[in-house]
C-alpha cells in the first residue's frame, strides 16, 4: 500500500489531518513526503526528562523538524519541559500556549493538533492506549520502551502494529541498540555464522536503585503513583520490563526469535519500603528459544551491588558481546563509534518517512516487551510459563478510566501463590465458595 500512494494522496491526507479529524476508521497517513525534506511537525506526549530529551534528539537527528505541541498529565512537568526545550532546540521550538495540553486527555489533544509525528514518552502504563490512538489518528510514531506492561496491552499494541503497517505509518521504538552501528555490525556477523550456531546467551541489567518521588501531603493515590511510577507493576511493568527489556531485545535480535517459555525467580529483598511500591528488586530468568537455545537473564536494582549492563552469546565456534568484539573462529573488534544511538533512531525514523519507506518496529518491540513480561510473570508466579499462555492471558493492568482519586497498591507478588490470571490488585481470581454439604 505504501508504495502505491502518490503525492496527491499525501496532500489530501494532510488536509484531512489539518482539520483535526481524529481516528478515521481506516485512515491514511497524515503526511508522507517521499523524497524531500519538507517540514515535519512533531508533538510530544509525556514531558519528563526522557520525553524532553527525545524531542531534543529528534531535532538533532534530522533537518527541518519543529516541535509544535506538548502534552503531559501535570502542569509542572510540562512547564519544565518547555523551559528546557526553549533553551536547547532554538528555532525548532514552535509551541504556542494553545498547543500545551495537560490532564488525562492531553494525549488526545496533541493527536488532534496538526502534527505528522508523535513522540510517546509517558510512563509505560499509558503506552498501549497512546499507540492505539496515535495510529488511529494516522501519525508516525516514536515510542519509548516498553510498549506495554501486561498481555492485554500487548495485544492492543500488536493490533496497532498491524494497523500501522496497513496505513504505511512509521514506528520506531526507543530500543536504541537497534540503531547502534556496532550492534548492527556485530549481530549481522553473528547471523552470518561468526561464532557458529548460538547455543546460549547471558544478558544483564544489574545496578543500584533509582530515584523515587516522595508523597506530598494531600496528594491523591493516583497522582503519587503516576509520579512515583517506577515502583508499581501497573505503571512501569516492574524493572525487568522497564529497563531490562533493552537486553532482552538484543537476545531476541541475536536469536532471531522470541522465547518459547521461561523459568524464573525473583523477589523484593532489600528495597522493601512502601515508598518503593510493590515491585521486585531482582529477577533471574532462563528463557528457552524454539530451537532449544537458552538465554539466562538477570536484572537487579540493589544499592551498593556490582553493576553490569550488557549481553554475551556463546556459539559452537566462539563468543561475542554482540557489540564490541567477536572471539573465536572469525574474530572481530569493533571500531570506535562516535555515533549517538539516541539521535540515530530519530535520523532513521525521519529518513524512512521522507523516503516513503516507513520502518515499523512496533511488533518487534512489543515482542521484546512481552519477553520481559513473560520473565516477570514466571518469577511472580513461580511457574514455568509459555509464550502462548502469557500472550493469551486475561491479565489486564491497563489503567482504565483514571482520575485523581484513590487507588490501592497490589500486594507484593508471592511465587507459588500469585496467579497469572489475577485482578490488578490481587494474587488470584476469587474462587467460588465450596457448596454446603
Amino acid at each position, binding site marked *: 500500500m505504501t508504495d502505491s500512494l502518490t503525492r496527491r494522496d499525501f496532500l489530501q491526507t494532510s488536509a484531512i489531518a489539518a482539520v483535526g479529524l481524529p481516528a478515521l476508521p481506516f485512515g491514511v497517513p497524515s503526511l508522507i513526503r517521499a523524497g524531500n525534506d519538507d517540514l515535519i511537525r512533531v508533538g510530544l506526549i509525556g514531558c519528563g526528562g526522557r520525553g524532553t530529551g527525545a524531542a531534543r534528539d529528534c531535532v538533532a537527528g534530522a533537518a527541518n523538524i519543529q516541535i509544535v505541541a506538548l502534552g503531559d498529565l501535570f502542569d509542572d512537568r510540562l512547564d519544565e519541559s518547555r523551559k528546557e526545550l526553549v533553551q536547547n532546540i532554538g528555532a525548532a521550538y514552535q509551541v504556542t500556549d494553545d498547543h500545551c495540553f495537560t490532564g488525562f486527555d492531553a494525549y488526545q489533544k496533541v493527536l488532534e493538533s496538526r502534527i505528522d509525528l508523535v513522540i510517546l514518552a509517558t510512563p509505560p502504563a499509558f503506552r498501549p492506549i497512546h499507540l492505539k490512538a496515535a495510529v488511529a489518528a494516522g501519525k508516525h510514531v516514536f515510542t519509548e520502551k516498553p510498549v506495554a506492561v501486561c498481555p492485554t496491552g500487548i495485544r492492543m499494541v500488536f493490533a496497532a502494529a498491524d494497523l500501522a503497517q496497513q496505513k504505511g505509518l512509521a514506528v520506531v521504538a526507543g530500543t536504541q541498540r537497534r540503531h547502534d552501528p556496532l550492534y548492527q555490525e556485530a549481530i549481522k556477523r553473528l547471523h552470518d555464522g561468526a561464532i557458529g550456531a548460538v547455543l546460549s546467551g547471558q544478558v544483564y541489567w544489574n545496578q543500584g536503585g*533509582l530515584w523515587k518521588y*516522595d508523597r506530598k501531603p494531600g496528594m491523591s493515590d493516583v497522582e503519587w503513583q503516576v509520579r512515583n511510577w517506577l515502583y508499581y507493576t501497573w505503571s512501569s511493568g516492574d524493572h525487568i520490563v522497564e529497563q531490562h527489556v533493552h537486553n532482552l531485545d538484543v537476545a531476541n535480535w541475536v536469536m532471531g526469535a522470541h522465547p518459547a517459555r521461561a523459568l524464573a525467580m525473583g523477589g523484593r529483598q532489600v528495597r522493601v519500603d512502601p515508598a518503593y511500591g510493590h515491585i521486585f528488586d531482582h529477577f533471574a530468568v532462563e528463557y528457552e528459544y524454539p530451537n532449544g537455545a537458552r538465554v539466562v537473564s538477570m536484572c537487579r536494582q540493589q*544499592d551498593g551491588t556490582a553493576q553490569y549492563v550488557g549481553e554475551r552469546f556463546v556459539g559452537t565456534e566462539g563468543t561475542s558481546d554482540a557489540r564490541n568484539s567477536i572471539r573465536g573462529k572469525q574474530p572481530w573488534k569493533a571500531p570506535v563509534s562516535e555515533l549517538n544511538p539516541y539521535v540515530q533512531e530519530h535520523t532513521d525514523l525521519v529518513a524512512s518517512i521522507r523516503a516513503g519507506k516507513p520502518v515499523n518496529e512496533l511488533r518487534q518491540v512489543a515482542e521484546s516487551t512481552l519477553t520481559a513480561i513473560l520473565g516477570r510473570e514466571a518469577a511472580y508466579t513461580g511457574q514455568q510459563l509459555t509464550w502462548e499462555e502469557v500472550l493469551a492471558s486475561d491479565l489486564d493492568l491497563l489503567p482504565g478510566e483514571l482520575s485523581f482519586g484513590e487507588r490501592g497498591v497490589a500486594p507484593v507478588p508471592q511465587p507459588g501463590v500469585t496467579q497469572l490470571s489475577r485482578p490488578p490488585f490481587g494474587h488470584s481470581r476469587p474462587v467460588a465458595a465450596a457448596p454446603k454439604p
Partner: protein
Amino acid sequence: MTTRSAQYALALLGLVPWSRGIAQNLATAPDTIPGTVVSFTMAHVPAGKGAAAPFWIGQTEVTWDMFEVFVYRLDGATQPPGGVEAVSRPSKPYVIPGAQFGHQGFPALSMSYAGAEAFARWLSVKTGRRYRLPTEAEWEAACSAGAATTQATLGARAWYWDTAEDRTHRTGSAQQDGIGLYDMLGNVAEWVMGRDGVPVIKGGSFQDEAKDVDCAARRAQTPAWRASDPQLPKSRWWLPDAPFVGFRLVRDQ
C-alpha cells in the same frame, strides 16, 4: 584538634610510629567512613615544589565502595524531612558506563566535578575532617614527589593504553610510587581545580597512550563527555560518556 589528628602531629614529630607501606619513610593515615566498615588511607605529601605546606592525599583513587555510601546512603542515613541536607547528594544513576569494570576496590568513575566535590564536602561533614579536591598544583606536587615516573616504571605503576586492556583496574593492583600512592597516572584521570580556575582531569587514564600519561597531563570537560545522556535536562552529577574520569581526595591536616 581531634584526637586522631593529634596522633598524626605526634607522628610527625617522630614520637609515635607511622603505619608504614611498602615505600620507605611512607607516612599514611587510615580513616573510616562513620557508620560503615569502608576505610581508606591518606598519604603524606611533604612541603616543597608546588606545595607551600605539607598535606595529605588519598593513597588510592576514591572507590565505588566509598562513593556509593554517599550516593545510596549506605551509612544508614535517612533523608531528612523536606529533603534538605547539608550536602545535596547525586541522583541515583540510570546506568553508569564503565561500572562493569569492577565494583569493590575499583575506582568510582563517570561522575561530574560537582559530584566529586559534593562527595568531599559530605565526607567532611561526616568525619569532622576537612576533605576536598586537590588543586592542580597540589596534585602535581604529589605526583612528582612520588619520583619522576620513567617509561620503564610506567608499565608497572600505571594502567594505561598498553597495560589496561580497555578497562579500569582495582586500586592498589599496580605498583606504588615513591611516596606510596597508587594510580596517580592512568586508571581513571582525576578531577582537580585547574590553575586557570576551571576543573580539569589530571594524569591520563586507562584509555590514554603512554605519551599522554604523566604528571602534567590535563584535560578540561567537553560536551562529548555527556553527549549521550538521553534526558533533558542532562544530569549534573553523571557523565555517561566519560568512564575515564574519577578523583582522589586531599586533606590539609
